[in-house]
């Protein structure tokens, strides 16, 4: 299938990427080839087949709803953020 420049731009938006014009060209060409390859799945008859979402044989694994000790505390986690202030992660203005 053909993948248009608008579609590439739409996928970039969905992915939260700001792409250069050059990247749009090269990624667009690559994506077209990849989609062509995966489209061969059309040939396979899957009528009436149930989908498999995971190969883990178990279903819901329950645990009591209690807070257990965690491996990292607030201070250690905040230290990872590029910027923080008063126990909060700092970012540029949102609006």
């Amino acid at each position, binding site marked *: 299938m053909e993948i248009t420049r608008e579609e590439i731009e739409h996928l970039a938006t969905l992915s939260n*990427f*700001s792409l250069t014009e050059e990247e749009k060209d090269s990624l667009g060409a690559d994506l077209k080839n*990849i989609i062509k390859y*995966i489209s061969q*799945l059309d040939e*396979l008859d*899957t009528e009436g087949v149930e*989908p498999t979402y995971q*190969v883990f044989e178990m279903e819901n694994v329950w645990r009591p709803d209690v807070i257990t000790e965690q491996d990292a505390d607030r201070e250690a986690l905040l230290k990872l*953020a590029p910027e923080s202030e008063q126990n909060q992660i700092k970012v540029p203005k949102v609006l």
Partner: protein
Amino acid sequence: MKIATKENTALSMVEAALEKAREYQDFNIFTSLNDEVALKKAAIIDAKIAKGEPVGRLAGVPYALKDNFLSPEGNTTASSHILEPFKSPITATAVEKLEAEGAIMIGRTNLDSFAHGSSTENSYFGPTKNSVDDTCVAGGSSGGSAVAVALDIVQFATGTDTGGSIRQPASFNGVYGMKPTYGTISRYGVIAMASSLDVVGFFTQSPDDMDLLMSITAGKDEKDMTTLPDFYGTVSATTVKKIGIVKDFKSSAVHPEVQQALDAQVEKLAKKGYEIVELDMPVLKYALAVYYIIQPAEVASNLSRYDGIRYGFRAEDAKNLAEVYANSKSEGFMPENKRRIMIGNFVLSSGFYDAYYLKAQKARTLIIKEYEDAFKKCDFILTPVSPNPAFKLGEKVNDPVAMYLEDMMTVPASLAGLSALAIPAGTTTDGLPVGLQLIGPRRSDQNLINFAKEF
């Protein structure tokens, strides 16, 4: 496994490993070395040995850690720019278990950024070179780990395998590479790529070492709800009688010397009295297409968390929050990361979901069924690991589909969550290693490792 003793001290082993790591630095195996901590830990183990105190089953054994396992020793970068400054406050369960037995991490190994690739060329820190021929790729994504073991810098290294990332580099470098049954080893503290496929495993120089590492690290972990109840070491040994070979792989583009290695091994097993069973598995040829739908979909979801806010690299000069996200991701990811995220968002987007994602999940059911039928006819399946020996650096890096085709023989077992082991099987006339892949039913891990001794 050669462990530390009074005569062969942990310190001498760690020093030798670090020296060797430096000697081979042109291969670009490590993203960082762990000298200071490793030497300190070695001294502690030696002191215990001197006092006659008990030490673990991996006492003083230097090992290499794929750089997508979290631990506070060094930065966990996933060979990416976006995690370059990331120093983890937590430790992966697998790492904890290894270290509890006295293993000492001497360095973190290079990978394709976020484990996206089959050659280690997608690393932000440049490619790792093949252990035998430095003009060829190491394989990937766990290229650094495979080469570290192949060059005998360490006796073992950790890896992760989503669609072949342990087995293929093991094959390209002539070492053992284990992809355990899905859910065998805890993934707590391992950077997620595609969660319905990712497993933790190892590179070793012998089946016995693999068995030891599996018995140490396998098992239920409260911190990872997708670990299976303990089974490793408790499953009764199978008497292997029948080995399956897949007819359909023959018709595909397998390098003649890889085919020869398989044929020679099949003949050897037949002579030993094993029955060889030819299997018709017509759906397997679609496995790669299925994989390159499901895996990017899960990648798109797992990698959305890297946005420059809570940890890692944050792009400078962003005027608002939206720009922080977009610029951090755009600067922080490699082209292959971007391709996979965009393909993932494509197959998941409305209008395409049924045709790609849902279709692939249905095909996955058919692949699982095909293996179930196959294991009614044979105990294990033997295939090449990869259709080709190690290819040249740069040969496929600009052609994603050509690179993906390298995974066609490793992804099927991943989609079905099976156990699979890459076993060294000689070299080509050019001296490049060739590996064979032994695939077994779920939970057959220990039997597979034992059977590898027949090769």
